[in-house]
């Protein structure tokens, strides 16, 4: 069923909302919201859509659920960041408008640039984490990914907490350990035909249970 058609409907059933972009105020969000107002169980919930897109809340909820994360700081002051962490650091936007995730800073001037651009000229705060290893970004589709075991585990556990079917995860790898750092919606172009196959397999599996599928 098309998302816009669903927004007019009053279906009472489990809803699986499949979309590439679940950002707040986008159609993907409104579908989940509408399903909740109708009193349906829905994947993903509107609350986890908001929470997963805000890095500090993502990290807080993930660490509560036992997913490895690094310490973070929410602020708009460069001095405070420098007092808390040594370089290099990775800066995530807390502002809602940025689409592509993070910037790494190896010195003071890069940090100023990163905080200024991701904080939209200091209007919003940023979320800073220390950079101890290398950053890896990968697609996670129903918690599945084509990466090694440590990343697969993170991806699966992140899906069990937030239940966002299609997304991109930013993970930091330090030695053999992997830490969840950030979340980002996927662009339509980034979804390959293999991914489509995984998606339809998952949907087929779920639809055996008899739900309404929106996507």
């Amino acid at each position, binding site marked *: 069923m098309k998302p816009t058609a669903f*927004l007019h409907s009053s279906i009472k059933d489990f809803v699986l909302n499949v979309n590439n972009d679940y950002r707040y*105020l986008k159609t993907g969000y409104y579908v989940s919201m509408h399903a909740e107002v*109708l009193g349906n169980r829905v994947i993903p919930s509107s609350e986890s859509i908001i929470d997963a897109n805000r890095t500090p*809340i993502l990290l*807080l909820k993930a660490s509560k659920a036992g997913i490895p994360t690094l310490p973070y700081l929410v602020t708009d002051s460069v001095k*405070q960041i420098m007092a808390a962490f040594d370089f290099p650091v990775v800066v995530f936007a807390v502002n809602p408008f940025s689409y592509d995730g993070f910037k790494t800073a190896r010195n003071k001037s890069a940090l100023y640039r990163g905080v200024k651009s991701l904080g939209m000229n200091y209007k919003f*705060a940023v979320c800073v984490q220390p950079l101890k290893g290398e950053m890896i970004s990968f697609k996670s589709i129903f918690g599945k990914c084509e990466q090694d075991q440590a990343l697969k585990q993170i991806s699966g556990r992140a899906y069990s907490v937030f239940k966002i079917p299609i997304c991109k995860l930013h993970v930091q790898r330090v030695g053999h350990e992997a830490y969840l750092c950030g979340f980002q919606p996927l662009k339509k172009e980034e979804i390959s035909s293999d991914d489509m196959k995984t998606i339809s397999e998952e949907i087929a599996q779920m639809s055996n249970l008899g739900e309404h599928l929106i996507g």
Partner: protein
Amino acid sequence: MARIACFVEKYNFTDPREEKALQNFKQAAARSGHEFDFMFRENVSVIPKYDAVFIRATTDPLFTAYVVSRTASELGLKVVDDPESIQICGNKIHQYALFEKYNIPRIPTLFINREEFHHRQIVEIFREFGKPVVVKAPYTSFSRYVEKVACETSFREVALRFFRKSDVLAVQKFMPTAFDWRVGVLNDEVLYVCKYMIPKGRWKHGAKLRGKPTVIWGRTFSMKRENAPARLKEVALKACKVIGHGLYGVDIKEVSGEYVVVEVNDNPSIYAGYEDLRNKDVYGKIIAYLVD
């Protein structure tokens, strides 16, 4: 003794009346022996040291205030406004969908979405609601992002501007009144009642002068909550129950003897000498709720 953190931004101190209200909160807390500290964006990491968080900075699921609220709630602190209320009140589409579900008396409202926005729909809306109609973006606050349109051209212009951020908008019937009721509600009880007057020749409480950036605000008349119409309070409490049990400001219009809800706001503005004028216990009651 409890420790309360009050999350504020710099702009909360630009208006002396609002600053006075914040100081009143601090004094009310001190009177009952509680600690009340202002917390700015730079030091939100101190949240775990407190027992309760009171948010005065403008709330929206997209602002830092939501991060503060959700963090506090995840850590098990008492928080006003709670994240669920911010989510519902910060998105008027969500709110009106709930009003429809629970049958709250409200201004006739329709939703339009970006994909299905075309000529025929506009004609139909004008036929149903008459001209003009009010177009509302879901993230409206302080009378911003609410515009009145009377023809298709301006409808398209306003809608396209609002569609840049949100894929769904609300369209409401235009109901001009001399004032809006504002009912402050805390924990399912009426806290204060005021009338927000509409400036002369305008149609909303905060109106812009043509071609100027300044906003003129209508006057505020406060009244004792006991003296407010019983039906008004009943409608306000009914609307808040749908959303939660925190602190809300309900906007209500009185149209030919009927009370209809315009919207419920979380984080209602409290200015010294305005909302609190006839209900001096506003501060004490909020503090008591926070430490309860």
